[in-house]
């Protein structure tokens, strides 16, 4: 048999790969190209950097009580999106990590049940879930009714940042727990025993073995929660009563206003920022994995 040179693929392999390559080109590369193309052109499709500069320089005035200040419109929106997304991601991680660990250590029957329970909300339509939270969090909603029973509240939640964060956490929690869980479930129990054997107490085992080994899961969990929550527009509109204009709302707004070029520019900038963040995170994970 003739041996193929490294990197040289057989005809069969090429044929098998062909549909995927076409698919990837058609649905990933081409749209991305379009986004970039729109971002760097004006309405006559002439090259321009105006859309990009507008994102960084556009200002508007906000009135808070008696003080009126001028702010960078889109930078402020971006900062707000980032803040809410980071808070949500952090809460997801804080709740998801211990739960993933407990799941991975329970019997295989319990594991199946828990995974199903976590997945079930994902089978329901995203809009319905968000509407459900609207009714739960209203001033006269279920939540206030419940805490009213024990003599608390009512708490005004709907229309606050807290409501938006609750919505994001609820919607994206499975994306945090599942990757962490799948890594932990594969972890060799013998490694934990070895760490104990070599002098680690439970905290030491967590810090020196479980955490570094689960980092890839944590990183993908963070990415999978951070990205949709930074670009969501629906949750903030419904649960934030539209008071918290997020970057996703900005893109939607520009798009609806038929301002495709600026919408593309915002999307493009968001993408670049996220890519840079991800690259840093991966590097951190790799470095951590070697040294620990």
């Amino acid at each position, binding site marked *: 048999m003739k041996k193929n040179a490294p990197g040289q693929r057989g005809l069969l392999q090429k044929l098998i790969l062909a549909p995927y390559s076409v698919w990837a080109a058609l649905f990933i590369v081409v749209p991305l190209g379009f986004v970039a193309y729109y971002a760097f052109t004006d309405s006559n499709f002439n090259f321009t950097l105006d859309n990009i500069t507008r994102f960084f320089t556009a200002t508007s005035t906000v009135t808070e009580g008696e003080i009126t200040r001028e702010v960078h419109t889109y930078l402020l929106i971006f900062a707000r999106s980032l803040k809410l997304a980071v808070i949500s991601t952090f809460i997801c991680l804080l709740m998801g990590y211990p739960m993933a660990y407990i799941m991975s250590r329970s019997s295989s029957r319990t594991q199946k049940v828990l995974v199903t329970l976590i997945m079930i909300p994902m089978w329901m339509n995203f809009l319905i879930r968000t509407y459900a939270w609207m009714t739960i969090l209203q001033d006269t909603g279920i939540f206030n009714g419940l805490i009213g029973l024990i003599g608390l509240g009512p708490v005004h939640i709907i229309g606050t940042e807290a409501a938006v964060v609750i919505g994001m956490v609820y919607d994206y929690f499975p994306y945090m727990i599942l990757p962490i869980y799948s890594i932990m479930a594969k972890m060799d129990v013998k490694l934990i025993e070895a760490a104990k054997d*070599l*002098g680690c107490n439970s905290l030491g085992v967590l810090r020196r073995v479980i955490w570094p080994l689960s980092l890839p899961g944590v990183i993908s969990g963070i990415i999978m929660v951070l990205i949709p929550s930074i670009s969501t527009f629906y949750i903030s509109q419904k649960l934030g009563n539209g008071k918290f204009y997020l970057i996703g709302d900005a893109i939607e707004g520009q798009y609806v206003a038929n301002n495709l070029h600026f919408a593309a520019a915002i999307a493009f900038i968001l993408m670049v920022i996220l890519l840079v963040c991800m690259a840093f995170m991966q590097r951190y994970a790799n470095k951590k994995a070697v*040294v620990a």
Partner: protein
Amino acid sequence: MKKIIELKNVTKSFDGEVVLDNISLDIYDNEFLTLLGPSGCGKTTTLRLIGGFETADAGDIIFMGENINNVPPHKRNVNTVFQRYALFPHLNVFENVAFPLREKKVPKAEIEQKVREMLSLVALTGFEHRSVTSLSGGQQQRVAIARALVSQPKVLLLDEPLAALDLKLRKDMQQELKKIQKATGITFVFVTHDQEEALSMSDTVVVMSEGRIQQIGTPIDIYNEPENAFVADFIGESNILDGVMLEDRKVAFSGHVFDCVDAGFGKKEPVDVVVRPEDVDIVAEEKGMLKGVVTSVTFLGVHYEIIVDINGFKWMIQTTDFVDVDEHIGLYIEPDAIHIMCKSEYSGMFGDYSSFSNELDELSDAESEMDE
């Protein structure tokens, strides 16, 4: 000799199934002790009890005079070499070995020095910065040993550490482990199902079966003076026959009365008689104490392994003299080649080679490697 670990009437069951049935065992300072038995005999459970990964249902585990039943693994001055090494994949060779020292907050310079010392002991100098996943099985094994020894435990527990290595490497590692044990003076408790490994490395062998200790002794004792049919069969090859003790130093089996060296049994007491295959001499048929027909001959290099049918009981005999299949031969057995054992629950279960084949033997070996 100083006792370092004592197991006293230890019992353990999993899901209602008794894995260890009231075992008692003393482990002495500086000895190489091997727990030997087929899979499911409880040897690994015994090791895990000492390591602290299981708790006994009943009985006591004493470590240097102190009861350690409820002491967690990280507080026991005992380290384990796990079956598939359990090296930390996110750490390099150096950090794997340094792991226990960092936990103890040993000063940096001391860590550096101790790890290098350990790596040179296991012949891995120069591998400090290699990833453990890039190492061969034998090298990973050495890292695991270095990691377990670096904090100078009183006792090192080894759970079938050589099972995953190929034969040649296994032989080398046996020698090396023995050398390391001698050099460090640390007590080794070694678990294996490989009787040859047990005999060649140990000071003391503990033969286990079905959650009970069958015999504790030196390798020579275990081989020459097995206590029951299980031990005789499990350690090496043996022909185990039904016999009757006629009087001291006289035993009858296979329709012949033999002189032997054992005494102290009751008159006419039924016994199990062990004759090792290498202790039987082949003579002309008319000169033999026993007479039989050769049914199979296998050439094994150092000797032939022949199966001889004597009144329906198949004997295994190892000889350097060639005999042919269907040849009628006589057997001659010296008195000191005959070992007498009391009857036990294992009597009659082993000892006949009528279903013997080399292939079958290998199959059962492979089976027992997938231990617990």
